[in-house]
């Protein structure tokens, strides 16, 4: 294992300390329990948006804390969900009296830990909504699995909901918007190489020199299909068509019902893409793939979208939701409406995403 670390045990903490030292104008960190929060928190009267997940996906989530995006992010160990005490403490520190939205990627650990955190926060008198992101079309069914994983759409939801909270949307409106972003976003990823979790020291899976893994998640977990490496255009076509031709996707998620005072099952349906849709096209590096290769992918993606009648109205290209040093990419398409577009364009100032300021 060759990594720029001191020890695997100190890696997450030292990385957070470095972030705080580099961006004192935007963020502060709290250690034990670990979370990153907005330097000017709490913002009174604003819905606080908190996310979190395993470390190793940077800049998501810790790099998206700041004006116009997240109020706090709770990093777990590498690829391991954070714990409820982190999310609870973060909520107490950043909440400005208007409630807290937890944006949660659909992994069993994240879901359970955030549900426990929400239960604890409510006992402290904090109003909380949990909204799941489950946009990975590589997972076909939801009946016999945990359901689709939360991947690229998470970044877009954090930006759009962050802007909405900044504008004074109340908790219900921000939660509804987050759910709408989630059902309109779809993603799929692929890997050229595996990655090495520092505490483990060896690659999570083996991939031969001439092989690739299609439909990977973001934790070094193997995908659904392994095949011989193909040219970028063919890979892009596989990923893009899986997204664009994905039929309506129905699943049951668990959300908190404020009136009933209990967790309830909610059925959500992702509508399929239609010709004429306006979309945000997001090409993401898994960490080890250079930007120049992402543009090769974007070139083909734009061609496919045009052919399918999808109008790309915004783009995002770069490493935003990564899997340590893994080579590979993911594509996310998000169907945009006017409100989402306006919120996407709103100013944001975080270590990982910054414009309009």
């Amino acid at each position, binding site marked *: 294992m060759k990594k720029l670390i001191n020890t695997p045990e100190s890696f997450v903490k030292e990385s957070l300390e470095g972030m705080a030292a580099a961006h004192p104008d935007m963020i502060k960190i709290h250690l034990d329990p670990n979370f990153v929060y907005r330097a000017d928190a709490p913002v009174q009267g604003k819905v606080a948006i908190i996310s979190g997940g*395993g470390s190793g996906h940077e800049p998501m989530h810790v790099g998206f804390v700041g004006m116009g995006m997240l109020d706090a992010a709770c990093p777990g160990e590498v690829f391991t*969900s954070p*714990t409820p005490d982190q999310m609870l403490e973060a909520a107490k520190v950043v909440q400005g009296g208007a409630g807290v939205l937890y944006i949660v990627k659909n992994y*069993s*650990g994240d879901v359970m830990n955030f549900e426990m955190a929400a239960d604890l926060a409510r006992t402290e008198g904090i109003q909380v909504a949990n909204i799941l992101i489950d946009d990975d079309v590589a997972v076909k069914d939801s009946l016999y699995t945990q359901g689709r994983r939360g991947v690229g759409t998470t970044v877009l939801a954090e930006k759009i909901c962050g802007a909405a909270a900044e504008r004074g949307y109340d908790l219900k409106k921000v939660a509804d918007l987050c759910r709408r972003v989630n059902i309109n976003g779809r993603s799929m990823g692929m890997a050229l190489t595996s990655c090495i979790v520092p*505490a483990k020291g060896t690659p999570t899976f083996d991939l031969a020199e001439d092989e690739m893994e299609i439909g990977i998640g973001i934790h070094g977990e*193997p995908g*659904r299909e392994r095949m011989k490496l193909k040219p970028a255009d063919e890979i892009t076509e596989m990923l893009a068509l899986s997204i664009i031709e994905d039929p309506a996707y129905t699943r049951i998620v668990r959300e908190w019902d404020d009136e009933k005072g209990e967790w309830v099952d909610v059925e959500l349906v992702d509508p399929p893409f239609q010709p004429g849709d306006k979309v945000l096209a997001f090409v993401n590096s898994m960490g080890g793939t250079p930007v120049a290769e992402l543009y090769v992918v974007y070139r083909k993606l734009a061609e496919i979208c045009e052919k399918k009648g999808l109008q790309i109205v915004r783009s995002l290209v770069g490493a935003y939701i990564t899997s340590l040093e893994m080579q590979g990419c993911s594509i996310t398409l998000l169907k945009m409406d006017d409100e989402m577009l306006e919120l996407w364009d709103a100013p944001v100032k975080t270590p990982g995403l910054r414009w309009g300021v």
Partner: protein
Amino acid sequence: MVTRDQIVAWLKTVAQVLEENKDYLTQLDAAIGDADHGINMDRGFKKVMSQLPGVEDKDIGSILKTTGMALISSVGGAGGPLYGTLFMRAGMAVDGKYELTDEDLAALLQAAVDGVVQRGRAQLGDKTMVDALTPATEAFKQAIGEGADTIEALRRAVDAAEQGMKDTIPMLAKKGRASYLGERSIGHQDPGATSSYLILKALLDVISQPQ
């Protein structure tokens, strides 16, 4: 009968066993999950060990609830809420007690399993820790119903857990990250069922030792 000192000794043994099996559990997890189960459980029980001295003179319920809270705040992943809930519910089932009758132990096991099922929404056969815990609890209850003593009943529970753990090998995972592998999850033993077996076996090992 199980005494408070045996419960304390059990938790210490669990910490030791999980440290010894850290790489083994992580390897099992690498095959169908995200390669962190052994690392997480080891970290969790190290936290338990750091808090145990403060509660080891209290009742068994308090000791187990403290164990649960320590796991919830240190394990992360799915293991944190699941094992945290398991020990919390186990503790709540035997609140205020300094020794456990076989009936108490049965109630403790049942409450623990119910907590895990409720939190994780997993069914028997989903290739999870439930596949080790549920048969173990059933076997324990059946054994004491048939008049077996504590050690014998626990031995049957551990045998059932071991069988349940092995039975996860041909199963198709339906919960957690392993479920994303679909057919490729078949042929691998579930890491959560394995750690559950190890934890139960540690209890048997402690109880079997002459006091």
